[in-house]
């Protein structure tokens, strides 16, 4: 259009990000911004739990029985520093929630990471080599997806827990949960990566670089993988919410985290026993926190799916 050639703008990565469509779309979506702020708050407070919480809920010596079942501070009988009240052992509800959220988030992130790793790896292999490897991997995926998710997770976590040696049981439980959740969720990533890989593999640049003698592994990771990342990213965000939900469900059913290392699900399970004794705060506040966390993640994921979808631009 203009005749005078401007020198190409050198942009740093940050500047490129502020200029991007995605950032623009984010700014104009009120619910996305709100969800991001809420999520950031939840994550920051969870990881600052040791600093913020008035009590260390794991320290049995800090619990005083005369503080048991105190109601939240705004109801008569509530006491400082127990803002949201205490449970039957005198444990501060707010501290329990902050520590519990941290466990829930860590398990969520870890299971998304594991399933991404496995899913991308197997998807690349299946799509790049094709043939019987592809058939076997995709068949395994089909079978996993044809059993309801909760069932797979319950079975895996309850059975694997049987095999853990007693000394290892405490530390291993979180790992078992991550494994149980990642067990089926890798399939989704593997399918996306495989489909994209099969398309990319036939393109000329792949042919060309194969002629030059690029090894298969390098081809998969450096050339094909970057082209599959967008849908993977969206799926990972939505799966993060799902992973937190499934972990909470398992803990609620009693096959997840134990009461001495409670996640939000465990807190709800424990609090549920006092539903009829009038101490509703023991179960209500962890439930609200869990809902806030999952709703925020899902709203972000929902927005991201639309923002990164080229068809909707």
């Amino acid at each position: 259009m203009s005749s005078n050639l401007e020198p190409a703008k050198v942009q740093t990565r940050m500047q490129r990000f502020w200029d991007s469509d995605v950032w623009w779309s984010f700014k104009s979506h009120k619910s996305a911004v709100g969800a991001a702020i809420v999520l950031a708050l939840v994550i920051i407070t969870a990881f600052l739990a040791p600093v913020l919480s008035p009590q260390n809920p794991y320290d049995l010596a800090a619990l005083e029985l005369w503080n048991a079942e105190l109601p939240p501070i705004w109801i008569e009988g509530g006491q400082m520093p127990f803002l949201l009240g205490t449970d039957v052992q005198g444990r501060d509800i707010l501290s329990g929630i902050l520590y519990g959220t941290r466990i829930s988030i860590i398990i969520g992130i870890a299971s998304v990471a594991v399933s991404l790793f496995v899913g991308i790896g197997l998807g690349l292999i299946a799509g790049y080599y094709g043939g019987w490897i592809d058939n076997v991997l995709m068949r395994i995926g089909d079978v996993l997806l044809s059993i309801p998710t909760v069932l797979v997770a319950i079975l895996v976590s309850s059975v694997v827990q049987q095999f853990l040696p007693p000394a290892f049981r405490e530390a291993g439980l979180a790992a078992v949960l991550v494994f149980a959740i990642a067990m089926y969720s890798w399939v989704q990533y593997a399918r996306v990566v495989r489909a994209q890989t099969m398309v990319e593999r036939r393109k000329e640049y792949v042919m060309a670089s194969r002629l030059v003698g690029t090894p298969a592994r390098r081809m998969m990771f450096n050339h094909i993988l970057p082209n599959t990342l967008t849908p993977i990213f969206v799926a990972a965000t939505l799966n993060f919410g799902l992973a937190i939900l499934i972990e909470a469900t398992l803990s609620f059913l009693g096959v997840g985290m134990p009461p001495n290392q409670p996640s939000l699900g465990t807190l709800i399970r424990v609090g549920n026993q006092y539903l009829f004794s009038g101490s509703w705060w023991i179960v209500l506040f962890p439930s609200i926190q869990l809902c806030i966390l999952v709703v925020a993640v899902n709203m972000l994921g929902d927005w991201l799916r639309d923002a990164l979808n080229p068809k909707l631009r």
Partner: protein
Amino acid sequence: MLAFIIKRLSNAVFVMISVTFLAFVIFSAVGDPVDQMLNEQATQQQRDDLREKLGLDKPFLMQFGTFVVRAAQGDFGISFRNQRDVLDMISERFPATFELVLVATFISLVVGVPMGVITAIKRKSWYAEAMQFTSIIGISLPSFVVGIGLILVFSVWLGWFPSFGRGDTVDLGWWTTGLLTRSGQMSIVLPALSLSLFQVTLVMRLVRAEMLEVLRSDFIKFARARGVPARSIHFRHALRNCLMPVVTMTAMQIGGLIAFALVTETVFQWPGMGLLFIQAVTFVDVPIMAAYLCIVALIFVVLNTIVDMAYAVIDPRLRGADK
């Protein structure tokens, strides 16, 4: 067409065999049943006899074969904990789960379809946007939290509905129903609501998406041009064209609901198969776990296969696409 049916059926059989294999592996991995069935003083001779009687001296694959044949005949063995026939225990519990799923499905259609239509035709109105926003929340809320919330509000605070159990049931011989007694009807309200919430949002979103698609099509424009009243266009012409995917999804989801009902059943202490399964998990009662896994997978696979095949009959394009 025949090739398609054969392919779908073989797929279903393959899935069932894999699930049975999984169940069998769990079965044989969780420990030696001989140790659990005999006491500590049993002699080696007694152990060997029992081992032979149970077929445990045979090679792994032979044992799996026997397991499959027995499972196909409905023989899943005897519960470790109750010493009762596993299939009897599960079939006693089945009506409770099935009624719960049925009522939940009914609620999800009766509430979800009109909401979907409204959000599609009044897209810009505040109540449509509010419903759309609530639907994200509805999909995100964990089912057990919803259940606990319902109990807290409607049983503990208001005292309108019972919070656990199935109420009085009527025995019809081969089926026990809670739908015919007053206390049974009251009892099913909260569990069915909490189980259906996710379904309601799913149905609503599906109907909305389909309606938006159909409303853009030429025959609707033509109907408008002809002066057909709006209500008739929306409900007689457009909605009818959306119902097929809704029916399909509902049918496919029933399998998932039966499995997922175990969470609801735990919250409401509803005496269905799911509660039986969760109790079996806590006591490592493997025969029940294995049987439940096989039965739920069977329901799931049969429903999916039927829906797939029905689709192929209705929509010929699918037959070619899957080759």
